[in-house]
């Protein structure tokens, strides 16, 4: 049945292509799940003299959200974060990425500040350690500071109620 070999090979290729169409090649899987949040030592956005390190995350479940005043999708996400911060008791840490300090502060003053603390990372030092590709991205760490979940793109209210919040509750129960 050698004459069927070409069409069989082509069928396999066609299936792979069809599968490829269902995937967004720009989406990267997180590689850092189940590893400790990387060590860092960066300034705080509000206070240049204050140093922030991974110690900030120790002891309780935290959510780290990467944002920038230049980032369009962050504008979409921001009201959701404001809402979460107002209603829930949660440690939400911001990471102001590739931004000018003044611009970041103005942006927060204008749209409101949902964050408990804000890491200032203008040169992607922490972002590269975290494998960040774009903003916004959100990480959830457990009580021991290990990354347990990563969300890519803006958080919608449904994302929060259906995925992120259950993850946080589960981690708190651990």
């Amino acid at each position, binding site marked *: 049945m050698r004459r069927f070999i070409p069409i069989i090979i082509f069928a396999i290729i066609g299936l792979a292509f069809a599968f490829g169409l269902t995937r967004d*090649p*720009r989406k*990267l*899987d997180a*590689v*850092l799940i189940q590893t400790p949040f*990387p060590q860092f030592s960066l300034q705080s956005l509000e206070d240049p003299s204050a140093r922030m390190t991974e110690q900030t995350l120790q002891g309780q479940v935290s959510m780290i959200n990467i944002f920038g005043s230049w980032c369009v999708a962050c504008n979409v996400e921001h009201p959701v974060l404001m809402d979460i911060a107002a209603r829930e008791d949660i440690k939400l840490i911001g990471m102001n990425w*590739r931004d000018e300090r003044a611009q970041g502060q103005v942006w927060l003053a204008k749209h409101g500040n949902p964050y408990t603390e804000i890491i200032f990372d203008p*040169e*992607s*030092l922490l*972002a*590269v*350690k*975290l*494998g960040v*590709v*774009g903003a916004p991205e959100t990480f959830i760490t457990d009580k021991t500071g290990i990354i347990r979940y990563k969300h890519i793109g803006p958080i919608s209210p449904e994302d929060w109620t259906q995925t992120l919040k259950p993850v946080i509750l589960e981690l708190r129960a651990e």
Partner: protein
Amino acid sequence: MRGIFIILALMLAPLCWAQTPPNDALTFEQIEVRARNVGRALRCVVCQNQSIDESDAPLAADMRKIVRARLASGETEAQVMDYMRQSYGDYVLLKPPIQANTAVLWGLPFLILLIGLFWFFKPAKTAQSKTPHNNGTAS
């Protein structure tokens, strides 16, 4: 025929990274050259399918800076590549490492080449050298 296989073996052998000499006091130029070597081997994760060395994207620029800083602090090229691989995974390496999920990728081309050459040259020996006298009969 043996010659071909020797050449092939020679070509297959140095598939590993060029080792960098230990660095005591690196000059700007030395770091720059190494930074570009590393830059060419790392994929720019936002702009896609360009190395960070070629890319104009801001994140690529930051990654270049980080690569330079780490090289300047005394890390080897391989260590810097590993650092990036830890956070971005195999995806960031433009040269896929040889491991379980790339065995097919690295092995198959050479396997096919060898099978092809074997198929081509094996029957020739039996069919030809043993029957040198049938020149008259057309094939």
